[in-house]
């Protein structure tokens, strides 16, 4: 009975693939199937349907991911997919009896997208959705790599991928650079202030020396052009009255 079932399944798969490759909605193909297998087909079709219980939709974008190197999606690729799902279930929950044939695919479109469901032969029902979800999430990386795709191009709808957080060093880099620049600037300021103070001390020392020398020859030339030299030392200098603008308040037009 089980061998008949497997053979029936295989035949159904083959026939379904033919249907999909030729186009949508080919009811006549289904009608042409052997009636002996129709019972088996119906049961499996009930298990694997768009929106069925514990079924998930998968979407692949091969051309977007791989461009010219995109492979065609055929039954061999589907076989690999079934194998990866079976592997995930086996490693996640310890259901050792899961075989590749327990993973059912249906409604393969040109997109490429399809629905899959996992059955458990020992319990004769589908593996619950939560388990399938957990299994896929755990092994998502390996499934992606098997198909040379990534999270965006191999999508399991309703199974969110765990995104890898970016690595952050223990001290943020900006703090390091900030501290370096800060220290350099502080050092520069301190150097300039210190050298400024030193310069001023030197100047005041030099000017006291000069005034000592001046005291000795004070009676010498202190007047030049009628202007006493001391006044020229004042900070603002002397304004030359000839050039002053005068007290004009308002100038007539």
């Amino acid at each position, binding site marked *: 009975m089980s061998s008949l079932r497997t053979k029936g399944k295989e035949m159904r798969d083959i026939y379904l693939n033919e249907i999909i490759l030729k186009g949508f909605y080919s009811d006549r193909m289904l009608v042409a199937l052997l009636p002996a297998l129709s019972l088996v087909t119906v049961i499996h079709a009930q298990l694997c349907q768009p929106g069925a219980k514990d079924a998930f939709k998968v*979407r*692949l*974008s*091969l*051309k*977007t991911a791989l461009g010219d190197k995109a492979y065609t999606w055929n039954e061999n690729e589907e076989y690999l997919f079934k194998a990866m799902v079976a592997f995930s279930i086996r490693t996640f929950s310890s259901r050792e009896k899961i075989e590749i044939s327990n993973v059912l695919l249906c409604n393969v*479109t*040109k*997109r*490429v*997208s399809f629905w899959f469901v996992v059955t458990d032969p020992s319990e004769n029902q589908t593996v619950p959705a939560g388990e399938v979800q957990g299994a896929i999430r755990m092994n998502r990386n390996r499934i992606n790599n098997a198909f040379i795709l990534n999270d965006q191009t191999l999508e399991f709808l309703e199974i*969110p*991928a*765990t*995104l890898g*957080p*970016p690595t952050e060093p223990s001290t943020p*880099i*900006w703090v390091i*650079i*900030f501290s370096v*620049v*800060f220290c350099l*600037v*502080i050092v*520069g*300021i301190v150097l*300039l*202030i210190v050298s*400024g103070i030193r310069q*001023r001390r030197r100047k005041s020392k030099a000017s006291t020396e*000069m005034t000592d*020398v*001046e005291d000795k*020859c004070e009676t*010498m*030339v*202190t007047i*030049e052009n009628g202007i006493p*030299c001391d006044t*020229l030392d*004042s*900070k*603002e*200098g*002397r*304004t*030359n009255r000839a050039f002053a*603008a005068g007290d004009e*308040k*308002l*100038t*007539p*037009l």
Partner: protein
Amino acid sequence: MLIRKIKLQIKNISVTPSNQLARASANPFLVRSAGPQGLCRGHFPRKPCWSCPCRSWFWPLYHFSAGGGFLIPYIIMLVVEGMPLLYLELAVGQRMRQGSIGAWNTISPYLRGVGIASVVVSFFLSMYYNVINAWAFWYLFHSFQDPLPWSSCPLNSNLTSYDEECEKASSTQYFWYRKTLNISPSIEENGGIQWEQALCLILAWLVVYLCILRGTESTGKVVYVTASLPYCVLIIYLVRGLTLHGAINGLAYMFTPKIEQLANPQTWINAATQIFFSLGLGFGSLIAFASYNEPSNNCQKHAIIVSLINSSTSIFASIVTFSIYGFKATFNYENCINKVILLLTNTFDLEDGFLTPGNLEETKDYLASAYPTEYSKIFPDIKNCSLESELDTAVQGTGLSFIVYTEAIKNMEVSQLWSVLYFVMLLMLGIGSMLGNTAAILTPLTDSNTISSRLPKEAISGLVCLISCAIGLVFTMEAGNYWFDIFNDYAATLSLLLIVLVETIAICYVYGLKRFENDLQVMTGCKPNWYWKIIWAFVSPLLIIGLFIFYLTDYILKGTLQYQAWDATQGQLVTRDYPNYALAVIGLLVASSTMCIPLVALGTFIMNRWKKGKTVSV
């Protein structure tokens, strides 16, 4: 020894301007005197390129709202307003041979307030301007990571998808609004001081202090670096920008004039204020600067050369800006199209790669007709992608430099290098402008005897930096960016217009246009021709009065002033009204600089009456 000292003094009195200082900006209080200290201050570049590189660049990086076709208002405003007013200020400085306050005092003692208003405006400017440098430092320090932190969104708490706010906005907007500013939803919610921003602000002020510490001699040397380095970086960016995919779209957008925008007076106002800002009109720096020129200097030629250099630098910078903007817009447009293609492919299970941008439209029509129910379900999600609308998304103000450029940079190869280059250039420009502003505040303080006799100039500079930094910490709060926008929009614009208006009227009608003309002929040997005279006497004042009227009517019509607030739940900017206290602050800002002019005039009038009364009674 004494004779040598005297000879030195006489030599100093007649020293030529070529030995003198590159004062980056105003010294309104400086009276040109015969004292040695007043003259020997360092070295001075003959070509007057002092503040123009720094200010003339910010405007294309900044004010983008005019969008394409800004060239026409800009060039017209330059020829009609910029050049004549620049000539006027240079001529005034050269003729009066005094700083800003002294020069206006000479023309009429009632007009001393004009110089004081310039100092007040410079003070406000320096308070808020350094925050931009703080942000530039922040981005610069974050540019040394791989990948750049603004290139991808952070994950949400259960690691299944990206952070919600980041998904709704973009990763660069998220980095700016959340990571950098940590902005609050409105100006009322103040929040606390962000310590990271506060640290960057303190660092920025320390750098400024380092440059102005020794006074204006050290400033002159720094200005050489801060003025020349951005040119190098800009050339590198020009080559990179023009080779980017989609740069042509940006350039085409820049050069096509838009009639409806030319009809909008706001465009002309923006162009006028940008000309004033980038040429440095109304700050008093030009007058002080020109006062060091020789009397026979041909200031007309100077004015034309300076404004041409300034505007060509601006146009050069905007070519770079628009080519990068075109790249960003094209990238976003192509992303948008790809998203629509993906949506249609997934909904209708079409073959992957079947839909291309070429056949998208016809396929959409076919699908709409063939499967109307499913199409109508997804119809709200199908966005109409348009390159024009991407180019039109005008981002104003500081957001432009930080959001648009970072978005473009993250898509380039070797993005860390471009990011570092860009923010170093931004820092150079910002620090150069800050040096000018602080020099405008410091020179009156260091020249006045009461303060400088008690404190050394390092202490005065330190005090000014400390006070400005303390006030600037307000801008590092969560609502700080809203206060920044207030200062940015209102601190300088109206006051500058008023100052320039009063200057033109003072020269033409108070001092006398004929007298001014004769002075210029005596000084330089050539009379200003009819073009300049007409513009000084009629066109400029009328234009500025027109701008004022527009501002007022705009305010009265709108009823209240509004601002753009970031809404984290929506991931975009929303418009809100200013609360009353914010309006009061705006009023105070505008009033404190503009009221200087009438108040000082009134004060002088009262003093004169009192003096007359005294002399009469005596």
